[in-house]
């Protein structure tokens, strides 16, 4: 299950929702807002998402992960709106019978989410400038 929210992510509460008596391992990934990107000092980030397709495509990713690395429970939550340095932008949690599936499924989910979901990130820099990540630069340089 995947969710999009404009509210702060509460990792402990989310972790609790994945409790399963058959789970012997739990793995989570948290993506945090960093103060630097490619040499520029970032003041805050702004996330935009197209929720209907984030849900559809995100649930497809979770299903793929379950097929490859059978897990018991998994959840992902992604923030939208303005985020300050240190805030959590994304949370992925996986509970499985053994640790191997939990680690691998968690890694698969975050890797696929980053490249497949219609979510965009705008960096606001301390110098007042701003830019969409992966956009202007690849247009300017003719490459990704």
């Amino acid at each position, binding site marked *: 299950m995947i969710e999009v929210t404009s509210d702060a992510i509460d990792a402990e509460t989310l972790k609790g929702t994945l409790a399963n008596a058959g789970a012997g391992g739990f793995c989570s990934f948290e993506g945090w807002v960093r103060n630097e990107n490619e040499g520029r000092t970032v003041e805050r980030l702004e996330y935009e998402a197209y929720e209907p397709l984030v849900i559809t495509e995100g649930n497809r990713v979770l299903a793929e992960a379950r097929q490859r690395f059978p897990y018991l429970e998994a959840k992902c939550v992604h923030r939208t709106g303005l985020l300050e340095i240190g805030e959590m932008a994304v949370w992925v949690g996986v509970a499985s019978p053994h640790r191997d599936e939990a680690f691998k499924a968690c890694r698969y989910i975050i890797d696929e989410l*980053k490249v497949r979901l219609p979510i*965009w*990130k705008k960096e606001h820099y301390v110098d007042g400038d701003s830019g*969409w990540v*992966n956009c202007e630069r*690849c247009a300017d340089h003719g490459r*990704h």
Partner: protein
Amino acid sequence: MSATAKTITVRYFAMFREHAGLGEETLSLNVTTAKDVFEQTRLRHGSKEPNGHCKVAINDEMADWSSPVNDGDTVLLFPPVAGG
């Protein structure tokens, strides 16, 4: 390219919305594929972004650039994504 104009609603996101200055518009376009919609709206709004890293959806379903577009379709143009 078809000689018959189709009525297509185009939705722009993130950088594309900023380039276009609007989030959505309904246009009469001579188009066959999603790629045609991308190229024609790109020219219309002076966007420099190539489609290589972009994605497209038609009527809320992820699509390919070669997917056909039909009269009345809504085409969603997604600039390079950057979640996480």
